[in-house]
């Protein structure tokens, strides 16, 4: 039936060149934009669904800085804070660290496996952590051991000595010592001349930033047994289940009560004060989520407009051809035939539209690749887009086509 109808449909379309062209063009443009936008959305969703390697619920971060204390004076103050926080009801354990996953910035250094190597094997995130951090975060150790309390050294960030011990992520271990166990092997961090020994390997821990610049190094994390005395450290607090809100409410006041010569900022991101890990995650991925939402909104509007356009123009064609439809019905065409006619007509226009659209979509993708460091549009997105628009075209034609099929044969006898 379909085959039989193509010829008359084409003949009729020749009399509506402009309208046909406009719908086809609209479908082509919509396809080009929608499949590239879908690809952007998918990339952002993949980006923000990466795992951190930690237990994110019931985790609180509190950034605090000392206003006047510096150097060696800081260590006892931090220990007093840790003690104060551990005594809070609802708190399970507390660690202190400069750097944690998705913090929004931090410290990066290259690592080598030989002291005199010129180029680093990998650039890493350095988290300066105490012996509680690993367990507080809930990161999984797959080999070796955690730091001991007596291994943590307090030092100034301008005067960093190479640590004796390091805990690194599995991804980094496999990068620096491929095909062998990295445990017990040396690593030179940040141009240090003395080696550090890898004493533990974590299954996974995400770096300090979710920004795309750090994607390549996001799985390379090094824990160093240090307390930085001149940086804004964060207390990482593991609360008992359901106690997060309660602890978050009192954390600031409790710390100020213990010692008021400090600053706990109010801001978001890197310099944030009291933040639950859910907030840390939300702030880290705000950009990605925002882009995904904007692209989705544009796609939705685009598809609605295109569908509405098809409904509008098809309705016009139906009303224009009522008499012809009547004649066909009088000559024996069934309602089904009329319906099929309009659906076929739309299918042919849509097909031409999507074929043009494929070319436009690839062109747009190439342009985006050339200007914005994105990847080429993968084939599945093109196919999804094509299917989506062909279906949309048929669905949008259905209502006017049904109306056409209900045109009575009597129409044939009426004057135009």
């Amino acid at each position, binding site marked *: 039936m379909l085959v039989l109808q193509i010829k008359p449909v084409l003949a009729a379309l020749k009399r509506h060149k402009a309208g046909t062209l406009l719908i086809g063009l609209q479908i082509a443009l919509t396809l080009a934009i929608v499949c590239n936008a879908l690809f952007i959305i998918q990339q952002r969703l993949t980006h923000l669904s990466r795992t951190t390697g930690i237990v994110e619920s019931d985790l609180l971060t509190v950034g605090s800085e000392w206003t006047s204390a510096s150097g060696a004076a800081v260590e006892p103050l931090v220990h007093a804070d840790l003690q104060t926080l551990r005594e809070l009801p609802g708190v399970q354990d507390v660690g202190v660290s400069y750097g944690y996953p998705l913090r929004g910035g931090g410290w990066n250094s290259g690592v080598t496996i030989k002291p005199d190597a010129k180029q680093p094997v990998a650039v890493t995130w350095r988290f300066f952590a105490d012996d509680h951090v690993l367990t507080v975060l809930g990161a999984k150790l797959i080999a070796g051991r955690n730091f001991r309390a007596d291994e943590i050294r307090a030092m100034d960030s301008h005067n960093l000595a190479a640590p004796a011990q390091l805990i690194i992520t599995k991804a980094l271990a496999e990068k620096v010592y491929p095909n062998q166990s990295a445990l017990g092997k040396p690593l030179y961090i940040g141009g240090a001349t003395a080696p550090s020994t890898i004493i533990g390997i974590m299954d996974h821990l995400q770096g300090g930033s979710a920004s795309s610049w750090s994607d390549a190094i996001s799985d390379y994390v090094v824990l160093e047994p240090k307390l930085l005395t001149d940086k804004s450290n964060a207390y990482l607090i593991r609360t008992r289940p359901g106690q997060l809100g309660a602890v978050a409410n009192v954390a600031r006041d409790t710390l100020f009560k213990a010692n008021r010569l400090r*600053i706990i900022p109010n801001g978001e991101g890197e310099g944030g004060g009291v933040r639950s890990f859910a907030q840390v995650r939300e702030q880290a991925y705000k950009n990605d989520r925002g882009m995904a939402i904007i692209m989705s909104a544009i796609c939705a509007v685009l598809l609605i407009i295109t569908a509405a356009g098809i409904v*509008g123009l098809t309705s016009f064609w139906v009303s224009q051809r009522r008499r012809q439809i009547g004649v066909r019905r009088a000559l024996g065409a069934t309602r089904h035939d009329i319906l099929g006619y309009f659906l076929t007509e739309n299918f042919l226009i849509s097909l031409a539209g999507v074929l043009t659209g494929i070319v436009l979509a690839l062109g747009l993708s190439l342009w985006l690749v050339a200007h914005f460091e994105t990847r080429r549009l993968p084939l599945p997105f093109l196919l999804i887009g094509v299917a989506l628009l062909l279906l949309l075209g048929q669905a949008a034609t259905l209502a006017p086509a049904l109306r056409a099929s209900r045109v009575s044969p009597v129409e044939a006898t009426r004057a135009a």
Partner: protein
Amino acid sequence: MFSYYLELALRSLKRSPGLTLLMVLAIGFGVSASMTTYSVFRAVSGDPIPWKSSQLFVPQIDMWGPDGRSADGEPPNALDYVDAVALMRDHRAKLQSASYRIAPPVQVPGSRRHPISVSGHAVYSEFFPMLDVPFQYGSGWAVDADTNQAAVVVISGKLNQEMFDGKNSVGKTLDIHGKDYQVVGVLAKWDPQPRFYDVVDTGGFDTNSDDVFIPFTRAIAVNLSNAGNTSCNSNPAEPGFVGMQRSTCTWIEYMAELDSAAAVQKYRDYLNGYALAQKNAGRFNWSPNNRLRDVPAFLDSQHVVPSDTKVSLMVALGLLIVCLVNTVGLLLAKFLRRSSEIGVRRALGAPQAAIYAQFLTEAGIVGLAGGVVGLVFTGVGVFSVGLVLPKDIAALAHVNFSLLLLTLVIAVVSAVLAGLYPTFRASRVQPAWQLKSN
């Protein structure tokens, strides 16, 4: 005559409310999506100091050599301490200032309040006149404050409000980082975005205000370390902040005012001479690889406008084009449906020009209605973008009169453009044929 066309158009639009609504909404959506993304783009791509940006230059010196260059051969975007101080000492530009970010605790002397952490910059005296920084009270400090490492401070109006209840605080003292500083100036509102004098630390945009400015030399003397980014190609050989000052780590921004093309060329030659001298002294063992860009070019080279913003704008413009194609189709349907009416008018003596006037009026009204709808959607859109985008960017996007006017103008112009072809077709309707078939 126009009022007659207006009446005809309104009557015609009323006759098919569904189609009319569809066109109005399509234009409204298309225009508002473009305007919403444009408001963000406009906010981040603006010139922060338009009257002077072409005279302000950022020098870059290649102190790392071939190993430290980016893939496209660019030297670091900031200076190390040695070079920054050398450039300041040579003082070859009309005005110049090295600067770095500081974040000291601040307290009003004698008060029992919690000290607060503020963000600020250590700068030279020429920073203020060079960037036309506006003052509410007092002024910047004199050149001798630079040489004397004087304990003076310029504070923001915001900090003045918090610390001194907004009163003229010039001459009062403020406890910064445990030392007393004399206030010499209070800024009027000054929040340039992009933050052109500190792209290195902000990436271009900053929700925090710069609340304190103290002499660069003073900050170095009291070991107020850098609170911004530090990039090192190799580890400092010596420990501490002093080791940082002797290293090739980059953490200092630099800006110079050069008023003429000749001055720019002279400064370029000077930078080359400086890099060559460093090579001859054995500090660099590579040829000079400097850059000297004015503010717009520097912002561009640092990719200050996020690519997301550009992509969103492009996609939204695509949406506008689709909406226009859609409107062309619908207007075509609408106009040709009235072929018999056109036939009658033509037969009664209306010239083609009259048909043009009539139908373009109708398209214009659709555009105007679409524009009004677009205004509402743009308002909603800019508000929603504020919710979904990161603060530093979202805070900059706002609705103002020029954006609203642009929305209306684009809506009407695009609707009339979309109406051109349908009107052309309508004007070619043959009266004889229409009359006969009726």
